[in-house]
């Protein structure tokens, strides 16, 4: 299956490489509970859930929605109602009931778009609950909502409405999950849901709104799958090289198996329009690590420390990452605490441990079973070295 490079574009389910095992695992988990799917941006979360929606293993109702635009409870209710409206329409009896409910709360349906009256957020959530219950009642299979970018929606709710509105939605959804055994939800998002939950907790909302859900990380592709993807792209783009298999391996390894970057590198090789070798690939990657134009915006890994980490934590996070960037191999926790403690005036070891947990959740750092820590992505480590002038 020769493929064309398509950095950032829509990759159809039948062109998705190397995610079958993860998808099978997700279906197994969904058999028992809902899922929070986490990963860095462009890791391929949306492609995975697109494939799940397109190719479910059993008959059921599967809805995909991108919620990044949603800024209020009302909009959320309307958006979900829109998506299930067509399903309701297929079941005439349900459609009538839905319409009655809609009229009762003063809403209307115009050309397939459900419109609720302003200020009817609470009614909207009730209507949503009611309709989901009806759907489940009249459908024997599972009903799964794949909600993409849910942390962004919560962020919008906090910014435009209130912390309470965000918490209200999360609580409502949790209640639905708890009362409807065949209802499943898949939350995905590029900014970690934990960041929003931590912020809500700091604002006084102690509910563990997602602790009934399984948190599943989307890792980069395994080296074999990443090389396979690169190989198919090299073939599809007809890129001349003396040994395409080898070159594919070099590409996969140079970008840590992140599918988006693999597409990106092959796209740039294709734009070059000349025979390529290992050095061409390394040249492209190196340029992105140091280029002021920074198409890959790796600077984000530095900037978000300031954005998401409170003032007392960000110096610790920087010191941890600096220490890991210069270390030739993974560092044992005790040694890291010692290294970082020397740079952090507070000397508060528990604070450092807390930051380490966050850095792991934010995909900067990983820890192995022996307790040693390292950068999760060698590519980001190289960027960090270059950006912070730490040398190899």
């Amino acid at each position, binding site marked *: 299956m020769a493929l064309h490079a398509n950095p950032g*574009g829509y990759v159809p389910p039948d062109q998705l490489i190397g995610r079958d095992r993860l998808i099978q695992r997700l279906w197994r988990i969904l058999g028992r509970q809902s899922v929070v799917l986490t990963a860095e941006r462009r890791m391929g979360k949306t492609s995975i859930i697109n494939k799940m929606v397109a190719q479910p293993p059993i008959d059921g109702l599967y809805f995909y929605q991108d919620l990044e635009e949603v800024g209020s409870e009302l909009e959320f209710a309307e958006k979900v109602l829109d998506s299930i409206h067509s399903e309701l329409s297929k079941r005439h009896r349900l459609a009538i009931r839905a319409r009655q409910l809609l009229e009762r709360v003063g809403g209307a349906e115009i050309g397939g778009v459900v*419109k609720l009256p302003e200020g009817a957020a609470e009614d909207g959530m009730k209507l949503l609950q009611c309709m989901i219950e009806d759907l489940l009642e009249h459908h024997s299979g599972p009903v799964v909502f794949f909600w993409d970018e849910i942390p962004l929606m919560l962020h919008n709710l906090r910014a435009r409405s209130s912390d309470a509105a965000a918490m209200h939605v999360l609580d409502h959804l949790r209640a639905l999950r708890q009362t409807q055994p065949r209802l499943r939800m898949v939350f995905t998002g590029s900014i970690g849901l934990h960041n929003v939950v931590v912020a809500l907790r700091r604002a006084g909302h102690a509910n563990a709104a997602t602790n009934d859900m399984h948190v599943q990380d989307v890792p980069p592709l395994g080296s074999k799958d990443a090389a396979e993807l690169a190989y198919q792209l090299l073939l599809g783009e007809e890129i001349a090289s003396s040994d395409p298999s080898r070159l594919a391996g070099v590409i996969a390894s140079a970008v840590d198996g992140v599918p988006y970057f693999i597409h990106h590198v092959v796209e740039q090789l294709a734009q070059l329009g000349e025979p390529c070798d290992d050095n061409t690939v390394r040249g492209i990657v190196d340029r992105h690590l140091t280029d*002021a134009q920074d198409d890959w915006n790796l600077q984000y890994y530095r900037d978000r420390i300031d954005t998401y980490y409170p003032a007392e934590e960000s110096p610790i996070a920087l010191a941890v990452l600096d220490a890991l960037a210069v270390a030739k191999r993974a560092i044992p926790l005790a040694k890291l605490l010692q290294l970082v403690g020397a740079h952090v005036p507070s000397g508060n070891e528990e604070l450092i441990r807390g930051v380490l947990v966050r850095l792991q959740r934010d995909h900067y750092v990983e820890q192995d079973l022996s307790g040693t820590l390292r950068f999760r992505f060698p590519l980001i480590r190289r960027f960090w070295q270059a950006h912070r002038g730490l040398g190899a």
Partner: protein
Amino acid sequence: MSVTPLLSRFTPSLMEPETLEAIFVQREALAQRIVVSIRESVLTQAKHYSLIIGPRGIGKTHFVSLVYHRITAMEDLQDRLAVAWLREEEWGVTSFLDLLLRVLRALRSRGPAVVREPEVEQLYELSPKAAERRAAKLLEEALGGRTLLVIVENLEDVFSGMKAEGQRKLRAHLQEHHSWTILASAQSLFGGVSLQTSPFYGFFRIVHLQQLDLDDAVKLLANIARAEGDEDLAAFISSPHGRARIRAIHHLAGGNPRVYVILSRFLDRTSLDQLVQLFVQAMDDLTPYYQARMQWLSPQQRKIVEYLVDRRGAAPVKEIAQRAFITHQTASGQLKQLRDMGYVQSESMGRESYYELREPLMRFALEMKKQRAEPIRLFVEFLRAWYTGAELRRHLELLEPSRALDRRYLEAALSAESGSSEDPCIAACLQDLEQHTQHQRWPAALLAAEELTILRGDTADWLARVSCLCKLGRPDAAGDVLDGILTSGSDAFLWHRRARLFTEAGQHSAAQLAYLMVLSRPPTEQSWALHGYAALKLGRYEEALAAYERAVELKPADTFSWSGCALALVGLRRLNDALPPAERAVELAPTTIYVLAICGDLLRRLGRYEDARRLAQRMVDCAPGDDTGWWLLGDALKSMGRFDDALAAYEQAARLDPAAAVRDLDRSECLAALGRWDESIAAFDAALRRWGPGEGIPVSYTAGLLLHIFRCGASGPDWGDTAERLVDVHRRNNALLSLGMGLTAMLEGLLAADVPASTVSRWTEMWRSMAPREPGADDPNSSLALPTLLLWAAVHYQLSGDERVLLDLRAEERRIVETMLRDALQQPSTPR
């Protein structure tokens, strides 16, 4: 009646597709790539989103227009595609709803009526939020499964208007409905697509349009001339004169196609008055364009650009910050943005970055606006770029007395020229020549050199042209160029150059004559080495040695002259004397391959194989990509009897220079020594094929191979099969004569071999039996008749002492055998 096509400088989207295609340059591969991605988006589920980045005037609209026309002309896409092209200035898009309405409007105005008009009108009766959701639904219904190609120009403005909320809605829509493919353009990379915190981070395939280089500019202008039916102008543009003129304005245009299009009107104007008029008109045309570009900037950025207009030339960040009353950090940030947007360019000198306007024409146009009363300064600058000094002087001579203003322009330009160290046209050419030479871009370097010979015509310019032609493997053409400037009075250097060109072209007699011309020049301090080289080439070793000795006396650090001394002494067969100068050269230039090669080969010939190997190894370490070191390493190892290692070195040399047939011979010899006959003969066959029938393979190689076969066969069962294959290979390559010479040349080795006389005798008998008795007989191996006879006779006479063997030969054959025997038995062998 032929109609001149519309060539719009500011709105290429108005141009006919044929015209867009006709003047399209540089970006064909990219256009094809984008077209393929759009086709894939229409014909499959995959969807591509491409963003073309480039400053104003770089050709973005031309590019997207061309892609649009190519896509809409594809019959097989007609029923599966809807196109919405949002024009350059889509002012007023402030929300996702606005964008949807523009798309719906664009769809209504194009192609089949897919949008139901009343339903669009109904949208205006809804609240904005409801209208937005309804419009999105309406659009997807209208598409009915077709793919929507949205072309958006100035995406950064559309995104800026939509703000983050609108962008998120758009992205959510695209994520939920995989029905859109997007081709967008923007002036520079902007936060809305490049920041990880932006909804569209990583969403687009980002393509930066490159500015035109000189070749692209020439093609563009020639294409424009042809599109306008002016074949004469097209021909002029492609001539060295035309290129020189375009090169002169290249730095004014800053690689911006729009500016080239405007300047294209000047190209065939040689009269001053026409030029003045056109220049002023062009500046008038450009002024609104540049003013509009200024309006796109923030007040702070505008202030910086204005300062650079006044400043003329590059300024450091510190100075710019000071003059704009802003901090260094702010100035640095703003300048980076201006660079990304194509307004300025930067150059680093030490730790400091200097910024200047990217397009000098922008300065001209903005200056003209400011200094209406005194346009002379910028026009003078233009004249200097446009005309050579000679042309300026000619115009001045021919100017009528009444043209006082023109006289002022010309005099000012000439005065500026005399006050300046260099002519800008020549400076531009020289700079390009240097850069192309440095990067070994020989075709481009040749063009620059050709223009230099026209603009200036110094000997150095002609020689640069000659060098470029040589690098391009055109020694004949290089020789012709050199002949154009050679006279009987030319100096030794030019004759030396000519001689080398004759040699490269295979004209050895002519080369010898040219070397004689070198020797006929009175030697100078600079030319002793050339005299030495010429004498060396003519085999006049004593003379060469004397000249080189004089050269090193004058320049004791001249490595090539020391090496020349060594070569002259080798020519005189004074190998031991040759070593000190060769070693001196190595001391002076311990990493120069040529110098190391001479010394290494000498050491090997003196039997100092380990020293030769070490030197060859140094060559390999210094320049692993140069085959010379590997070759000499192979020679040294072969001489040491390390045939496996030698073979590996030769194979590496062959990989680096696959065309050299001699590598096959060396490999063949090593393989023979290792008893790998099939491979050995195959390698010899390859060498014969490469060498061709016209030129004989060096006889020492053939003799060497034959001796290996002989020695091996002496202890093994069979020569016959190998010998027959060797004959067969030579016959197929029409090279039996070469084999015959090898047979006679092996006599010395044959007689010296430590084998029974009967074995030697059997060898010669075998060869005798493979050839007819008389040459010229109708036998495919008749060329071997005489050599095998001579070998047989020499061996039998030597072994038996029977004079009848010689007396049976013809007188001339007898003399040859006597000479062969004398050489084999008396002369010391000369290593190859």
